[in-house]
Structure formats: C-alpha cells, structure tokens
C-alpha cells in the first residue's frame, strides 16, 4: 500500500519504506563517484539484496553499537520543504513523519542495519523479533524490562494492546492497515468501533495480553511477515494513559531518544533529548546530539544551495526527506569537497506505465508499448542517473528476489526503446487498437513524462491521445474501475522487504475495485494461485514463488511496462558525522548522526 505519489501528493512525499539496499547501491559518497556506474550498482545490489533476518534476544539487546569517532552534543538543523503529515503514530505512513518517528517512537520490533547493508528485525520494546507458533498463525512478544515513555511511565502490554486497538477508531485513517486487516478482516472497524476507548477490547482469541509483559497475536492464516509489519512507524506505541485521541496528532508522547520541545506544523519542530530513554534497552538508536531543529518551508533548491555553500550554521545541517535538486546535481558531483558529503541509494519504487486491461486487451499492443518506451528520456526528466535507473522488471533493487539481469524486453540493452521489435508486434494490429489514451498528472514531471511517452509511442505507429488529469486527484481518477484511460504512469514500493507488499497490492485479482491499487485490473488465475501459495510460505520458500509470479506477469500478462527505478541523493553539512544511506528508510540514516565539533 505504498505509492510513489502518496497521501500528500502535491508535496511528493515518499512513502516510508524498508528495503534491503547494499553498500554499493546505497552509501556515503567518497567524493569520486560520478554516477556513471549505476549498472554496476544494480548488479551488485542483486548479489547482496537478500531477505531480512529475524534477530533473537542477543541481537535485540542495547545499547546500539558505538559509531567510530562519534561525539556528543550540538544541535542538527534539519531542512524540509513541506510540513509533516502527522505525528500520531497511528496516522504515520509516509516518509516525512516516518523519519521523525525514528527519533520519537518505539515499536514492538525495529529494523537494524549495519554498514555492510545487512538488515535484520530486532526486538525494540520486545525482547526479540517475536516467537511464532501454530505455523505462523500465533505470534508472542515479551516486553523488555523498565522501558519508559517520556513521562517516566513504564510501558506495559496494556499500552501495546491500546496502541493496536486505537487503530480501529475512525479518527485514525491515514496509517497502515495491514495488522488490523489481518486481525479482524477488511471491515476491521466494525470489530471495535470505538477503538477501545469505551473500555471494550478485542477478544483474547485475537489479541491477548495475559500479563504486563506478554502480547500474543492470533491470526487465521500464517503471517510470516509480522515482525517486519510491526516495525512500521504506524505501529509505534501510544501509552494508554496519555492518549488524547485527535489531539495526539500534534502533541504525542515520545518513547524514543528524543521528545518534542515545540512544534508548529509547516514551520518548525524542535526535538530535545528524552531523558527517560535508556540506551541499554535500545539496540538501534543513538542519542549523540542534544537535539534537532527542523525548519520547514525550505525548498529543495534552497536546501541544496545552503548545503553546497556550507557556511555558518549550515555546517550542522542535513536534508530530511528532500534530495539534491536536479538542476544542481552537477554542482555537487563536480566538486569533490561537496560530493563527499552526499549519500545516495535506490529507493524502493519502480515507476511503470500501467495498462488498463479492461481497455487494452491485446497482449501484442502491451508488449509493443513495453518495447517502444524510452526509459532514458524519461529518466532524464527525473534528474538523470541520480534520479533513476532503467528498470528491466517489476522488482526494485531494494527488494529481496531482485534480479538485475532479468530483462525480458531488453530494456537494459536498448533503454531508448526497441523500435523494430515494437513495429513487428504491431504489424497485424488493427489501427483502432493503436489509438491509445494516456493519462498524466498536470505537474512539471507529468508534462515531461507525457512528452517522452508520446514521442516513443508515436515512433512505432501509435496514435496517442494524452489526457491531463488534476495531480491532486490523479490516483482517484485512475483508480476508478471504469476510468476512460488506456495507460498511466504509476509507482510502487515495498512497505517492508518482501515481494508480498508489491505483487499482492498491485496484481492481486481480489483487489480489483474502485480505489484499489490494482490499477491494471489484472485478475489472472495463475497469479492468484501463486500469490496464495507465497503468502502461506516462509520468506525463504516464498522467494521462488514470487519470482515465478513476476516472470509470469511480465512475460505472459504484461499489466505494466517497467520504466525506471527511483534513486535518492542527499546532502549534509561538513560538520555532520555518521552519515550513511539507510536501506530501511531509503534516506539519510537519522539514527546514526552526530556532530564532529559540537
């Protein structure tokens, strides 16, 4: 359930993600990389893009490993263009709030990554990543001793139960819904309409808290991904006695290493140390700096200028979820002293041209479009090699199961499109089927994509009718089952490192409905069978099934033409230490920073 252009579509906030990037594809820059080796990055990512491991108690015990050379003290200035969407954990789904959540909130589990790109799920409030039984239908978590919130109250299993149950209340509408759906079905709100605020609780057969330290989830089908799901910011803990319902969104109680000192949404956010956070209970986070001073409303262009200049207070500044502005990329990479202050890596998104299968029924037409598209010109509009790389298939380099060499349409060899092959496929196609309606959002990027796609398709004989769609309601428009378009650009990325959060939401035939994310309306029996099979398998077994599903989809069904993988490229001030690309957030690792001279 993660879109590239997400809930706050205008701000182009990027959905909070977990990935399994590698050091080659995501790293602190040493100042010499010009980005020309992106193909090599992809290939190496393929080698190292492996499934997340689940840590035991030893791996979940704090404190986090010290960062070499780290100093304590000082305040980091954080530049961000748009304000935060939410601060109530239950409402957090996108990366801006998700990044803040990494500083403020703790969950039952958390992702931990090392400098080699290995990602594991560790116990955060829990002593480990969870113990499954009953074939994955039952999961038990035991809470660590004396973990306190910012008010000094010990977090108990009642707080965990409350944090889950409050998600059923109607005022929580913007966060992830995986857990609620798994526990209570698609109409989960009916199971607890008041979200537990009326004293009623979910039955023990669903969520049980037999004592202060134990939390047990019961599902009707195996949920092997649960430890990863619970690591999402949307499932962070809200202490029961401090829950102020709707008001909580602007004044939440911290459980992580920092707490809110002041907050004016869209203007400023000041974080200071949470003195009740105990590093001995946390194997992931650090508390090197005294605080973070967020300044909102600073455009990516201004952020980049300030950080390139690196004057005064900007030496202590970072970009938050924004990246180096496309027109200033050359200024950064050509200056080694600036370039070495960057981090870069793949984001989890694969941009694709999705076909409306209710209208484009001819497989040859879909294949011809896939061959004809010019990924190179599309990527140029996104900032070149720093904005994206050619995508030969549906799996991003961040996804376990990614195959760098899997390129059935030869897009890596002919990124500008295989005109001859496309024409050959269209040879016997009636003229009426060559007239296609392409929908695009009325943004600057949308315009660029329109030009590139029109140009590529008209070269092979398509008659492209482009329809501009209001960017704010773009997904609403293309999400209608009876929409009047043949094709549209969409983006998708995993919610955690598993193809289950890619194949299922966008290719599951059970999810063909108004507003659902299956924009191609694909409903293929074999795909359904493979999805069902994979969801009941353990991650390592499921990998082969997901691979088979992708191959079948891309070669036999073609619900979408893969276009490009998106990339992140961020800059920080010269006094900021510990910078590295986080494969978990697809951003600068906010939990790994310090100031060299405070």
């Amino acid at each position, binding site marked *: 359930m993660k879109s590239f252009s997400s809930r706050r579509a205008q701000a182009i906030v990027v959905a909070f993600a977990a990935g399994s990037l590698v050091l080659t594809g995501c790293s602190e820059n040493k100042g010499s990389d010009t980005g020309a080796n992106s193909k090599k990055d992809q290939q190496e990512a393929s080698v190292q893009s492996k499934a997340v491991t689940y840590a035991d108690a030893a791996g979940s015990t704090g404190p986090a490993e010290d960062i070499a050379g780290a100093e304590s003290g000082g305040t980091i200035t954080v530049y961000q263009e748009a304000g935060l969407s939410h601060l109530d954990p239950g409402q957090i789904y996108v990366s801006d709030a998700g990044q803040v959540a990494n500083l403020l909130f703790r969950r039952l589990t958390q992702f931990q990554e090392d400098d080699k790109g290995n990602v594991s799920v560790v116990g955060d409030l829990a002593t480990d990543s969870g113990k499954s039984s009953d074939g994955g239908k039952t999961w038990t978590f035991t809470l660590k001793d004396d973990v306190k919130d910012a008010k000094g109250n010990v977090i108990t299993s009642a707080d965990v139960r409350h944090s889950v149950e409050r998600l059923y209340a109607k005022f929580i509408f913007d966060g992830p819904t995986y857990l609620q759906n798994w526990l209570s079905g698609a109409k989960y709100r009916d199971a607890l309409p008041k979200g537990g605020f009326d004293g009623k609780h979910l039955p023990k057969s669903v969520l049980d808290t037999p004592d202060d330290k134990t939390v047990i989830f019961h599902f009707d089908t195996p949920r092997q991904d649960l430890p990863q799901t619970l690591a999402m910011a949307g499932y962070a803990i809200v202490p029961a006695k401090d829950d102020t319902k709707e008001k909580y969104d602007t004044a939440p109680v911290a459980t992580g290493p920092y707490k809110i000192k002041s907050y004016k*949404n869209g203007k400023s956010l000041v974080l200071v140390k949470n003195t009740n956070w105990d590093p001995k209970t946390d194997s992931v986070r650090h508390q090197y700096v005294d605080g973070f001073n967020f300044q909102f409303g600073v455009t990516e262009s201004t952020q980049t200028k300030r950080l390139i200049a690196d004057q005064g207070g900007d030496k202590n500044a970072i970009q938050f979820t924004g990246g180096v502005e496309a027109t200033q990329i050359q200024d950064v990479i050509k200056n080694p002293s600036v370039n070495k202050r960057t981090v870069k890596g793949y984001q989890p998104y694969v941009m694709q041209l999705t076909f409306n299968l209710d209208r484009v029924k001819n497989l040859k037409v879909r294949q011809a479009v896939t061959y004809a598209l010019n990924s190179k010109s599309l990527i140029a509009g996104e900032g070149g090699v720093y904005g994206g790389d050619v995508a030969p298939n549906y799996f991003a380099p961040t996804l376990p199961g990614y195959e760098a060499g899997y390129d059935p349409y030869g897009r890596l060899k002919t990124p500008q499109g295989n005109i001859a092959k496309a024409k050959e496929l269209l040879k016997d196609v009636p003229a009426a089927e060559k007239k296609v309606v392409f929908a695009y959002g009325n943004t600057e990027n949308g315009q660029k994509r329109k030009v590139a796609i029109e140009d590529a398709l008209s070269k092979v004989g398509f008659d492209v009718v482009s329809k501009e769609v209001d960017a704010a309601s773009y997904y*609403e428009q293309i999400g209608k089952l009876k929409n009047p378009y043949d094709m549209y650009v969409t983006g998708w990325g995993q919610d955690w490192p598993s193809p289950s959060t890619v194949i299922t939401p966008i290719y599951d035939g059970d999810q063909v409905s108004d507003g659902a994310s299956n924009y191609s309306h694909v409903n293929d029996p074999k795909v359904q069978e493979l999805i069902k099979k994979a969801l009941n398998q353990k991650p390592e077994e499921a990998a082969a099934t997901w691979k088979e599903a992708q191959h079948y989809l891309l070669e036999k069904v073609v619900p979408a033409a893969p276009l490009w993988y998106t990339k992140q490229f961020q800059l920080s001030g010269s006094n900021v230490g510990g910078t590295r690309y986080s494969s978990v957030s697809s951003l600068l690792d906010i939990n790994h920073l310090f100031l060299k001279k405070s």
Partner: protein
Amino acid sequence: MLQFIIRRTVGAVVTLFLIGAVTFFLFVAAPSDYASLACGKDCSPQRLEDIRQALGLNLPITQQFWDFMSGIFVGRDFPTGHCTAPCLGQSFYSGEMVWSTIMDRFPTTLTLTAGGAVVFLVVGVGAGMIAAYRRGSVVDKVATSASMVLSSFQIYLLGPIVLWIFVYSTGWMENPGYVPITQDPWGWFVGMLLPTLVMATIFTAQYTRMARSSMIEQLAEEHVRTARAKGMSRKYVFFRYAWRGALIPIVTVLGIDLSSMLGGAVVTELTFSLQGIGRLAVDGAIHKDLPMTMGVMLFGAFFILIFNILTDIAYAWIDPRVRLS
C-alpha cells in the same frame, strides 16, 4: 466622518462575507478535494468516507459554510478542542487552528511590510521629491536612471543574487529567518534585513519614479505658480503646497501595496524561505486546505478593505477639497 466610517465598516463586513462565500463555493466546486488528496492511492470508498467524516466534509455544503462563517463570531468546537472566536476553522492539512496559525505567521509578514514601507517611503519618496526639486540635475538623472534599472528587477532575481553574495559565497550573513523581536531584537533585525531590503528595493524604485512625476505635475499646477508669483520661496511652495498634492497618488498606491503585502508577500517569502502569510496562502491552495485558504483570503481581504477606508480618510486630510460623503 463618523458616519463615513460606520458606513464603510458595514460595507466591509458585507464584502468580507461575499468574498468568503465566493471562495468557499469556488473551492468546493473544484474538481478535486482534500479528502481525495489525503486518501491518495489505494483509496477505497470506505477509506474516503472515513476521511470525509473525520474532516466534516460529509456534512451538507451549506452547513459547512454556515459552521465556518458563524465560527468567526462565536467560535467552534472540534474533536481536538474548542476554537475561540474569531475562529477561521481548523486546517485539514496541519490540524492546527487557522487563526492561531495566521497569528503565528503574521509577525513575519508585518516585519517585511513595515520594514519595507519605512525604506521605500523614506528613500523612494525622498529620492523622487529631490529629483523633482532638482529636475534636470545630476541628482535627478542618477535617481531616474537607478529607479528605472531597479524597477525592472524582480525579487526572484535580485533575492538569489543577494543571497549568493552575502550568505552562500562569503558567509557574511546567516540564512534569513524570522526571530521574534521580543526574543532577540538583533536576531530579528539581522534575520529580516536582506528580505526586507530586497523587497524594499523594488518598491523604492517604483516610488521614486512615482513621487518624481507626481511632484513635477504638481509644480506645474496653477496654484503653485500663483504662490510663486506672490513671492513665496520655491522651497516654501514646494513643501507647503506641491508636496501635499503630490501625496495623493502616492497614498493611493501605498494603500494598495500595504494591504496586498500584509495579505502575503508571496514571492519574497518563498525566495527567502520565510514563513509568512503568503506562504500559508500558497500551501493552503496546494494542499486543497479549504479552511486555511479561506482564512488567509479573508485575512488579506480585511487589510484591503481597511486600507481602502484609511486611504479615503487620508485623502480628506491631505487635500481639504476632498469631502467624505
């Protein structure tokens, strides 16, 4: 005078209501709404309904409008708490009360406006008057040429140049930003200096040209010539008679400029990353945030109406021939 003020105040209230109504219904009639934007991808009808309900968008349009307008006078209750009058609603996007957000951002815009006005009135009008007084002299030529060059600049061009020179390149100054004057007077002054000067520079050039031409026109009036014929000194006639007449067009434009600046100096705020009223207006429109857009529109309109009234009063004070009727 009192009758005039009462009549204009009533007219202003009616105008504000009409502006509010037009803004509201235009916004509602737009092809997309905030709920759709918030719902984003994977937006099921149920989820869309949940958002509409949470934001009160499922209520009849007329009731939403009535709730908004009545809240201005009597306040409103929201799930997050009571919003005291004048309540301009609660932002869909940030969840904060619109009035308190506007009040939080207003000092930035007020500083820009007031600081800019001081500069362009003193320097701009002053230079224009001197140029007119010494028409044809070197001073006049310099003032005329400089104002012509500067008035052709735009804030979005001059701003980045100034930032590059004083901030990015040399580091002589920190990034512009607003600090409350009560908290740090020096920080307030330094933080707002560059944006204020850049904005004032553009206006200064315009006021120089306007003041010069207006004064030259006044100096050619018959009553000025008569005064000179009676033996009054040039300086005396200049400041006693011509000056007041020349002020009329300046005051007219000043009223329009100040009211629009207080309603949001959008380009200046965006260029210098300041969080003022203009920025709020832009963000409100981008996010389809109806309460915020309504609030900022009404706030800006309020100043336009107030300055209209003040301008009319100023006319009567400057020129006794003008009667408020």
